[in-house]
């Protein structure tokens, strides 16, 4: 054995001495936790794919720096009619796609038509192409689409007609999923557009070079880019390194220049190091604990409020989150442009919690609860169908808003025990199963979940969850609040930011007064970098552009 080891290490040393030196100075190497799904942003929902296309593709609008505010991008300006139904976009001139074809009003119309019309030759839904975000943001396809017409008036003017006013319209257009692709390239590639063979063909500062599945996506600087490239990156290698310890090792060994979400316990090492540093992405997410309203006891506002008062949010944030995280009092996070209500407070007060539980009739504590039935119309009945322990479901995955579901659930259970509520931790299987059970309203108890906003608009935050809770919704634990729903529906159809802001704040206040749900934390995402990287502009949506990066 010893001689074998000797030969092995000898062979190793010979090979190492012979290994060539690599790495160019202006190649930016990013360690992602996985492989992109597809590089056509219209078809994907995952952050990794969009991270890649964001480097090379652009939309009509964009977000300003590290904020959730919208600014003109491929469109240089826009106007909206008084009724909020007709939007006229003036496009920038002199832009070409990476394949040399011109970016113009026809190209914009072609992209919108491809997304929204199922009979468009490149829509290809019959072949399994799913335009999930178009459907989610614009109500559906064909007649169901809120965008009813897109017209190219002249070379640089596009008119988009809506069937009803939409407060989040510009925020939607700034989303990565609505980046404009070269029509000629999509037509030439057909169903292969966005696959490893073709990649993307857009207008942005980096061009697609190659994609080796599960290895890396390579992009290079677009020398004909219409705009400014502040940094010096000439080549991007977007690598898939699934193991978090290996990503950290790769950064230490200099194999990559940065990666997302180091383990919380590695952050002090990075911050104490001479050649690495941490940058925080502003948090645009919310972690919550939801009630399932089929639990008879949870229908009593006193019980819900007692549970809210019992949970020590600050202790949870201190113990499990990074130093930039903050306690959440509302669904909308403080980083949102409109609709954050700073007046809503959810204090920690176990004594008050005990008093409320006693008032509600549970002076001796609560360890078992009654599950109510659901009738054919989806309404909750008075009939008790079973009696079960108080369950606290925890998420089986790590999310920016939830660094450790089970450990946090343990802390929550301890807080609840301190006021006399005996909750048992419950797992609902893997992530797909958990989501499926949640969506069908089957997590009978308290359950963890959270949300990361897509477009900076409150309609995609509190509005996304509760605009239709005039009926009890299984996916929201049968929560029902017609007043909250009415406010959110009103706000989504307005275009004046000030009016909308007031309505969202009112909805948050109302929702908090009901203790409708328990908000725990907003967790910023840490990003780890080699010290050769500077100029990084963190984005609340993770939409960071490598064109700002300067490498030493």
């Amino acid at each position, binding site marked *: *054995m010893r001689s074998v080891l000797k030969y*092995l290490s000898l062979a*190793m*040393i010979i*090979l*190492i001495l012979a*290994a*060539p030196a*690599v790495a*160019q100075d202006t190649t930016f190497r990013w360690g992602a936790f*996985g492989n*992109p*799904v*597809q590089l056509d942003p219209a*078809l*994907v*929902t*995952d952050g990794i794919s969009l991270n890649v296309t964001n480097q090379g593709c652009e939309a009509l609008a964009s977000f300003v720096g590290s904020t959730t505010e919208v600014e003109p991008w491929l469109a240089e300006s826009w106007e909206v009619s008084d009724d909020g139904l007709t939007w006229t976009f003036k496009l920038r001139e002199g832009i070409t796609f990476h394949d040399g074809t011109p970016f113009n009003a026809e190209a914009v119309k072609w992209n919108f038509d491809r997304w929204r019309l199922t009979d468009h030759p490149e829509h290809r*839904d019959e*072949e*399994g192409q*799913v335009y*999930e975000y178009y*459907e*989610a943001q614009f109500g559906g396809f064909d007649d169901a689409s809120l965008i009813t017409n897109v017209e190219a008036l002249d070379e640089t003017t596009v008119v988009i007609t809506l069937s009803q006013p939409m407060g989040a319209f510009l925020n939607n257009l700034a989303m990565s999923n609505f980046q404009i692709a070269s029509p000629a390239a999509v037509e030439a590639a057909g169903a292969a557009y966005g*696959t*490893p*063979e073709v990649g993307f063909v857009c207008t942005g500062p980096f061009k697609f070079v190659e994609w*080796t*599945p*599960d*290895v*890396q996506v*390579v992009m290079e600087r677009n020398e004909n880019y219409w705009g400014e490239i502040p940094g010096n990156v000439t080549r991007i*290698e977007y*690598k*898939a*390194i*699934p*193991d978090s*310890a*290996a990503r950290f*090792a*790769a950064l230490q*060994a200099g*194999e*990559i220049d940065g990666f997302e979400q180091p383990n919380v316990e590695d952050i002090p090492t990075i911050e104490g190091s001479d050649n690495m540093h941490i940058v925080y992405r502003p948090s645009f997410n919310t972690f919550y604990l939801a009630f399932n309203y089929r639990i008879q006891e949870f229908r009593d506002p006193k019980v819900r409020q007692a549970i809210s008062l019992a949970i020590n949010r600050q202790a949870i944030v201190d113990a499990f989150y990074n130093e930039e995280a903050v306690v959440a009092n509302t669904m909308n996070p403080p980083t949102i442009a409109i609709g954050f209500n700073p007046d809503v407070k959810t204090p920690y007060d176990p004594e008050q919690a005990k008093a409320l539980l006693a008032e509600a009739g549970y002076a001796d504590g609560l360890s078992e609860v009654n599950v109510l039935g659901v009738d054919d119309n989806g309404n909750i009945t008075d009939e008790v169908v079973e009696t079960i322990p108080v369950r606290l479901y925890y998420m089986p995955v790590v999310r920016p808003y939830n660094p450790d579901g089970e450990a946090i659930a343990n802390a929550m259970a301890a807080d609840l025990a301190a006021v006399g509520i005996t909750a048992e931790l419950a797992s609902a*299987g*893997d*992530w*797909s*199963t958990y*989501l*499926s*059970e949640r*969506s*069908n309203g089957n997590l009978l108890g308290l359950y963890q979940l*959270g949300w990361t906003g897509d477009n900076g608009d409150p309609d995609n935050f509190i509005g996304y969850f509760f605009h239709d809770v005039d009926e009890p919704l*299984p*996916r929201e634990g049968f929560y029902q609040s017609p007043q909250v729903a009415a406010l959110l529906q009103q706000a989504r159809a307005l275009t004046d930011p000030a009016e909308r802001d007031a309505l969202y704040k009112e909805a948050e206040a109302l929702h908090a007064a009901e203790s409708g749900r328990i908000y725990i934390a907003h967790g910023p995402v840490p990003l780890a970098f080699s010290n050769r990287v500077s100029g990084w502009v963190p984005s609340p949506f993770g939409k960071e552009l490598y064109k700002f990066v300067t490498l030493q």
Partner: protein
Amino acid sequence: MTTYLIRRTLESIPVIIGVSILVFMLLRLIPGDPAIAILGERATPENVAAIRERLGLNKPLPEQYMIWVSGLLRGDLGNTVRGNIPIVNELRARFPATVELSLVAMTLAAVIGVPLGIISAVRRNSIIDTSTMFGALLGVSIPIFVLGLLLIYLFGVQLKWLPFIGRLDSGIKLETRTGLFVVDSILTGNWDALKNALIHLILPAMTLFTVPLAIIARITRSSMLEVLNQDYIRTARAKGLGERPVVVTHALRNALLPIITIIGLQLGTLLSGAVLTETIYAWPGIGKWLYDSIIARDYPIVQSVTLVIALIYVIINFVVDILYALVDPRIRVA
């Protein structure tokens, strides 16, 4: 011999069909589906239903199964649910990576494990024997991710001797023919790529070969011990044969059957993808891919790749059977 081979081939067909039905049904029995996985936190009953409809998941199960199988018979493995990419392309990109790593790890394990087992058996209860068997115990007991991370930190981060990400530095250009980088670089005379591919193989192979090495050494030892106690070995020694011919010609040949079996089984296991090793070393093989696909409920990938793996198992068993026949004439007659 020919009838034996034909019979074995025919026997594999029901196995493949059985696997296809099993994996198809199992996937649909576990909760969650591709629509949920695509939507994540956005999963609401309405948009789940809409996506299920578009993905054809609302069709009756027998119809879905027939659509899949008729595609397979035409050589079409289908497209991924997420991204709608032809699975055959994805498989072609990943499978050679798994094959290359498995073959290297397995060759090392066999080349080192068999002699170690023989020496341990011949020198039973010696220091070599006890330390080999202790090493083997350690080899099967140490968790792969612990070993992998230790190796990464020692050779990759501290000593900076060896790369630990992927199969090739991205500065190295290699024209791929077989997808096995070692083979491709030799075929194209690309010595830089050969060196680079080899040093990338060292750490993953060292991580992956520990378990098979330990198992092979142990099986070889016990199989040899059994044979060495046989009468014909005593006879061989009694008629004055040297220790070397006794061990190599008489004992080893008769001890080979279980060793071949275990090497075949271990190779089959490695070829179905080593999830942990591939994950730790960002090795772009099928193990991690399959794992992710199960998590994402990407039915077509899981179904088709599982079937391909089943096929490989069948082929390896087939080869093992042929080797049996070559090693042991009695099997040929039977």
